[in-house]
């Protein structure tokens, strides 16, 4: 009897401790891996920056399988993590189901849209940033042929490709644009070997600037471009440092800022609804630093910055592939 009681008491104590241990924010990285040097890593950097500045701690989960998204999400919500940030469109369906069950928890989904009173959906105007790097590609290309390697074949990635194509055409109306997607499953986010093969194939077709919007797959694209002596363009994180002299620039998608802001706002400060971050909001941009300063001439810089101003002012409207699933420039 006494034994049973003490057992119960200790069980209750552990249950309480488990609940109290986690009023922290949490982040879930989707397939592709936390250290993909791109999308997920950018999110991780944002979370780390918050932890370093505030001294707080956060829970994190790296997805290993498509089938466990719901389990991971509920696990964090039930343990009291708040807010919960998740990276990737693939969470949209699952979150739509889970969010109503945890009305007191705030969720932030990046790259996906979920309509619920406790969900903030953060999407980016990737077409705008891609337009700028497309202009740089069009001006840097000597062969007049540039290329694009996408990760998974989904509308989101076509949005990158379409913005890029429009930028290339703006700089060089006669340019040829080659586009390839790595695959149709989430495995396409982490397949550097195939990324490398696609790049080689594109080079053999004359491409001398390649833009990778493919998560971890992009590592292989950038590596091959460096090996073969052509220019590449990184994505999401600033990837200029990976191969200085070969990476022309990177299309910055400030996932880190989105995560940082969510963590800083905290459960009470997060406003539900959809936010679209473009050039005007500083959500996307192109990267210039010591690694690529020599590659971008004064003339290129002026042209791109002028276009940037015009996009912000609304004088240039970059077509968004997701609105009608077509791309005028391709």
């Amino acid at each position, binding site marked *: 009897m006494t034994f049973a009681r003490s057992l119960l008491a200790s069980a209750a104590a552990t249950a309480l401790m488990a609940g109290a241990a986690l009023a922290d924010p949490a982040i879930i990285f989707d397939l592709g891996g936390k250290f993909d040097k791109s999308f997920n890593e950018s999110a991780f950097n944002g979370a780390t920056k918050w932890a370093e500045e505030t001294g707080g701690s956060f829970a994190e989960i790296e997805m290993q399988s*498509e089938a*466990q998204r719901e389990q991971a999400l509920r696990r964090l919500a039930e343990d009291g993590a708040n807010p919960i940030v998740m990276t990737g469109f693939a969470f949209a*369906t699952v979150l739509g189901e889970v969010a109503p069950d945890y009305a007191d928890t705030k969720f932030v989904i990046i790259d996906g849209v979920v309509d619920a009173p406790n969900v903030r959906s953060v999407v980016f105007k990737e077409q705008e940033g891609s337009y700028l790097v497309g202009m740089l590609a069009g001006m840097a290309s000597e062969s007049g042929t540039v290329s694009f390697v996408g990760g998974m074949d989904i509308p989101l990635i076509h949005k990158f490709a379409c913005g890029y194509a429009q930028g290339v055409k703006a700089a060089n109306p006669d340019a040829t644009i080659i586009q390839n997607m790595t695959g149709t*499953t989430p495995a396409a986010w982490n397949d550097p070997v195939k990324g490398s093969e696609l790049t080689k194939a594109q080079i053999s077709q004359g491409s001398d600037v390649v833009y990778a919007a493919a998560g971890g797959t992009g590592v292989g694209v950038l590596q091959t471009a460096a090996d073969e002596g052509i220019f590449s363009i990184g994505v999401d994180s600033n990837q200029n440092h990976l191969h200085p002299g070969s990476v022309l620039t990177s299309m910055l998608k400030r996932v880190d800022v989105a995560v940082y802001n969510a963590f800083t706002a905290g459960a009470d400060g997060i406003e539900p609804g959809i936010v679209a971050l473009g050039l005007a909001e500083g959500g996307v941009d192109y990267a210039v630093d010591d690694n690529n300063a020599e590659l971008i001439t004064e003339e290129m810089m002026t042209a791109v910055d002028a276009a940037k101003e015009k996009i912000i002012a609304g004088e240039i409207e970059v077509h968004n592939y997701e609105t009608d699933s077509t791309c005028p420039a391709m």
Partner: protein
Amino acid sequence: MDVMPKWAEVILVPLISLILAALLSAVVILAIGENPIKAVSIMVDGSIGGVRGWGYTLYYATNFIFTGLCVSVAFHARLFNIGGEGQAMLGGLGVALVLLYIPFPHWSLALVAASIGAALFGALWALIPAWLQAARGSHIVITTIMFNFMAAGLLNYLLSNTLKPAGQSDPASAKFDAAYDLPTLNSILTDLGFQAARDDSVNVTFLLAIAACFAVWFLLWRTRLGFQIRSFGQSETAAKYAGISPLKITVIAMLISGGLAGLMAVNTAMGEQERLVLNSVEGAGFIGIAVALMGRNHPFGVFLAALLFGFLYQGGAELALWTSIPRELITVIQALVILFTGALDNMVRTPLANLFLHLRKGKEPPETAPPPPGPKRPDHEPEGTVKEA
């Protein structure tokens, strides 16, 4: 081979193997600089320390029971079905097609129909390798492995192109009708007024899995077909001599095996995810091989082994969640369990058999003492006879 009493054979040998595997795992955890005791407590707490943990442990166990039975039935006919993974994937397709395109008034009817669909698709996916083995002599290990890849490719194609609803980026089917949600342990507990988790984890499919255990036992040991399967497995020539058709038995055993693997999808697709996603099998087809090995191809053994692997799987997920121990380490632990219980079985069995022989010798020397010139270690006897022959 009655060197050991039955209880030692069934319980002691696997238990000692498990302890050895656990010890070695502890060494591995120590080697990467983590505390093994803390790791074990996290695993235990996360898998059997509460309703939520139990829910997922039993959920995974349900998967492993089906795939374990799948491998066992084939094993009894001396067929090594490595295609459980692909057969379960196709089972998922069966579930999805039934639930997406046929309307049902109640979840129970939907469950029956989905089970039939799952078993049918799984069985059909096993049919071609079975026929190739029986009629053409193509080795079933090779063909079933190849069929796993084909299943993955087929599902990938269908989910990305045909079954994916318009406007969705994720390669997954549409949600099944909410009316088909299966009652789960959590929902039943909540209805009874207890506080439970809100996951869709273990559900009525668990009962289906237990029923499948009984059905497989009945089939193998209480029916004429089961006898034919087992005789065919023991000796093909003898079975042929007795008038058993190898082609028929190979095909039937594989159909049953594939059907059992397919049934797993009822648990994952209908019970938990409520839609068909890529990779919903999550390697359960391969774990089924370990489960069958450890369960000695007996449904009750498969049931126990599936519980153990359910615990390892759920505990492992928790471990990856709350420590810096990578999830891959769980695969290492599982591999050690498989290694010790399957491949290194004799390492434990032989010394244990010797021990029991000694004990018995000490107790009742006149009856069981071997004649003076006889071999001291009877377990080595078969080897000796083979050499002489």
